[in-house]
């Protein structure tokens, strides 16, 4: 048997329809549950505020990393500089990259390349680099 009759005979329409619906609904529910996980973990974390408070007192405040870097390269380099102060005047690109990753700065490879191309990040010898002061 061939064609639509064969599909009908094998209950194909029902299989395809039900199968497609099940997988769509299943993954939609999973997607919804995933989106709830941060809230769930947030609730549990709020239940222990004293721990968070004491931890907050003990450690100095870290600057928050932005989700996206500004288009202006000088402003972007300023953000990078603020995160790399503890590396000192001179540092290796590996340390800089690690620092950027630690602070979840977006696209560290790309940004570091841009700073080098723009002459904001300059080599000082022995594989070390430093920030070039921005001229006004």
């Amino acid at each position: 048997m061939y064609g639509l009759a064969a599909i009908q005979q094998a209950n194909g329409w029902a299989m395809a329809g039900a199968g497609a619906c099940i997988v769509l609904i299943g993954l939609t529910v999973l997607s919804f549950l995933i989106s709830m996980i941060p809230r769930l973990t947030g609730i549990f974390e709020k239940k222990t505020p004293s721990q968070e408070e004491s931890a907050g007192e003990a450690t100095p405040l870290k600057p928050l990393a932005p989700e996206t870097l500004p288009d202006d390269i000088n402003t972007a380099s300023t953000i990078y500089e603020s995160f790399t102060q503890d590396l000192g005047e001179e540092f290796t690109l590996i340390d800089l990259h690690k620092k950027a990753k630690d602070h979840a700065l977006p696209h560290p490879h790309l940004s570091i390349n841009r700073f080098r191309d723009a002459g904001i990040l300059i080599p000082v010898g022995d594989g070390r680099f430093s920030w070039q002061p921005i001229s006004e």
Partner: protein
Amino acid sequence: MELLLQFITNTGYYLADYRHFFMWGVGLLFVYLAIGKQYEPLLLLPIGFGVLVGNIPFFKGFGLGIYEPNSVLHYLYFGVTSGVYPSIVFLGLGAMTDFSSLLARPKLMLLGAAAQMGIFFTLLSALALGFLPKEAASIAIIGGADGPTSIFLTAKLAPHLIGPIAIAAYSYMALIPIIQPPIMKLLTTKEERLIHMPDPRTVSRKELLIFPVIGLFLCCFLAPASIPLLGTFFFGNLLNVSGVVDRLAQTARTAIIDTATIFLGFTVGASTQADVFLTTKSIGIFALGAVAFSIATGSGVLFAKLMNLVSKEKINPLLGAAGVSAVPGSAREVHVMGQKEDPSNFLLMHAMACNSSGVIGSAICAGILWSFNVG
């Protein structure tokens, strides 16, 4: 003299016919694509050489062939027919997969679901072409673009079709750079391809730990037949993210998956004996496989466009093409096409989210199709 003649008539040179030559051509093509073009070499090299080995003519009854009881190849092939190798491959895949980009943007999971529509369209097409329901379901799963899942389901429903289905599934996976880009380009405008995706948020360790547990319960309760695949998949992922069993996670994503891949590829290749493989059904399977793969790619892209119509936050519709579970080939193609339009557009992480969702989606589909065709 008689002994010599008997020896000669038992040699492969004497027993070979045009079908063997054809299959050697297929095997050599796979080996060439793997080594020369580096198309999915991890799969095509073992399969290609398996095809060569499986198509050396031999005197039946010596217990040599993969389909002859008690032969060495038959024992190795047991891992395929029983579904053991695909299950082990999924363990390693789980240990390799980083779900953080999916957890950061859960709605990308819908694209993994949408790309599975190719499976159900192909199911109908295969039935219409006269395939039996179990055969049609096994052929349809090629649309999931997941080799181990295709092999697993076929082993359960239509073991006599493992060879052509596995070869079709892996061939199309290797041909992703040829099949997917024209479909992606055809279904999207330049403006759509230029859409930038915002950087994903940082995902906490707790989220990464909770996900495999939630995923396991939801998916395996929904389609218990997917337990052999998704059970090991989420277990592998938990090994990876737990951070307390690095040795086990490392072994799962290296030695274990590599061993399973070697035997899976080699025995699937060897199962393509000319007399079993070269049938009119195989031609139908290859044609339907191409349809399945194309529809899967197209439905993912179209669903992404649909999401853009109803959602404020636009997503790049190219990501829909990565909803098939060909990891990481389809994600790479999406990224490459995005970069061709705008070199500053980085889609890889987002595409990997759709890809990992596609792996889960196709395994659920396999479970659903198996449940529908039990008995």
